[in-house]
């Protein structure tokens, strides 16, 4: 890892020195050993703060939204999932490809932060769930690549495919069991909207959950409103979720948000044919087009 850290620092320094970008967004070590929060570097000498380790979870693409009105270029590091998120923003017309320098990092998978916290630095910390199901560990779009083509091939070999066993387990419950399961989950929701705030598919200027004048949702924190939030958020990212798992990581109440997202991914694939979001920014979105031969169940 330290070798990659060195390369990251070098390339970041070079980019800033050459003026290729005014800001480089990467990761640095945080308060705890198991956290590597994002770092916003604008001076070449600060690039030594940058690191790459198994805890560089934050999806940096989302931060580009903060630089929408920034005149100069911004450079960011992208893992496979960050690059899908970048494509997501590109497809949603939220970023300008010309204004971003992408530095790809082939990623062999990160470690579970929560487990790390409880097991300690010497424990055998397992991979994060999202990484165990990662179909795209290598960046799909980049201007520079850490480790070159070789690393790309090496990492590509580690790719996994989600088997949706967790989704299937929920599907196999009775309706009442399912309802109880989800009620228990969303009764914990604080409606802090952290899941929304980190999500690269959530790029609205004004989220409907903040639109009190229309009255989509009340401010009360109760099961009914929480469930409205859960279902609506899920439908809003349907066909658009890039599976970066940031929503679930950001959730302070450990709500299994990806379990909803993955259900929609599974259904979209079964109903409308194979589709992975954030792969082709020019393609059609599953809910943005239709096929006359879609399954007919409403006769």
């Amino acid at each position, binding site marked *: 890892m330290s070798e990659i850290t060195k390369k990251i620092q070098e390339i970041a320094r070079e980019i800033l020195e050459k003026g290729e970008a005014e800001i480089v967004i990467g990761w640095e070590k945080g308060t705890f050993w198991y956290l590597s929060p994002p770092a916003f570097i604008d001076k070449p000498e600060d690039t030594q703060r940058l690191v790459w380790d198994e805890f560089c979870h934050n999806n940096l693409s989302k931060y580009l939204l903060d630089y929408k009105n920034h005149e100069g270029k911004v450079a960011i590091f992208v893992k496979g999932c960050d690059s899908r998120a970048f494509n997501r923003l590109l497809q949603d017309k939220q970023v300008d490809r010309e204004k971003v320098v992408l530095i790809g990092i082939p990623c062999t998978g990160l470690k579970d932060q929560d487990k790390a916290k409880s097991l300690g630095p010497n424990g055998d910390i397992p991979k994060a769930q999202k990484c165990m199901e990662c179909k795209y560990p290598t960046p799909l779009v980049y201007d520079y690549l850490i480790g070159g083509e070789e690393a790309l091939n090496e990492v590509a070999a580690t790719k996994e495919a989600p088997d949706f066993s967790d989704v299937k387990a*929920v*599907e196999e419950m009775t*309706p*009442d*069991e*399912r*309802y*109880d*399961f*989800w*009620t228990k989950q969303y009764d914990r929701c604080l409606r802090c909207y952290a899941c929304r705030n980190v999500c690269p598919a959530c790029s609205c200027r004004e989220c*409907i959950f903040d639109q009190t004048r229309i009255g*989509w949702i009340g401010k009360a924190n*109760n*099961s*009914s*409103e929480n*469930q*409205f939030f*859960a*279902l*609506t958020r*899920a*439908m809003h990212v*349907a066909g658009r979720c890039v599976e970066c798992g940031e929503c679930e990581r950001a959730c302070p109440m450990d709500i299994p948000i990806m379990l*909803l997202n993955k*259900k*929609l991914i599974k*259904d*979209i694939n079964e*109903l*409308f044919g194979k589709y992975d979001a954030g792969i082709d920014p020019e393609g059609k979105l*599953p*809910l943005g087009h*239709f096929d*006359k031969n*879609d*399954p*007919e*169940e*409403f*006769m």
Partner: protein
Amino acid sequence: MSVKEIPQNWEPKILVFACNWCTYAGADLAGLSRLQYPPNIRILRVPCSGRVNPQFVIRAFQRGVDGVLVAGCHPGDCHYVTGNYFTRRRYLLMQRLLQYVGIDPERFQARWISGSEGPKFQQVVNQITEEIRAMGPNRKLRDAQ
């Protein structure tokens, strides 16, 4: 949910989102033809089934509706050419998502009913009303009130 739990004098309340050009006209035709059905449905007129935001459906359950039907023109017959094809995609997904969070499949349904299908309108309303009556009041997703 067992029959015992159904309160006395309870009547199901079912919301029907009907597109103006087909299903609303189909319901009008059922009326013109004097085809009787139980008075449990409330029709909400929208221009096209493609106007029905899934958030309206969840809201209805929150507020205490026992069942929701989204109905529009048959695929290929949409007054707005393609609206119902999007409806079909959206609600194929939405239906599965609702079931996934525990809503019984009978509670949310979607159907194509044309302006000439008065009898089909009657038959669909009869069927849904009976199904929901047998299940009792919906308590899922409801506001605590």
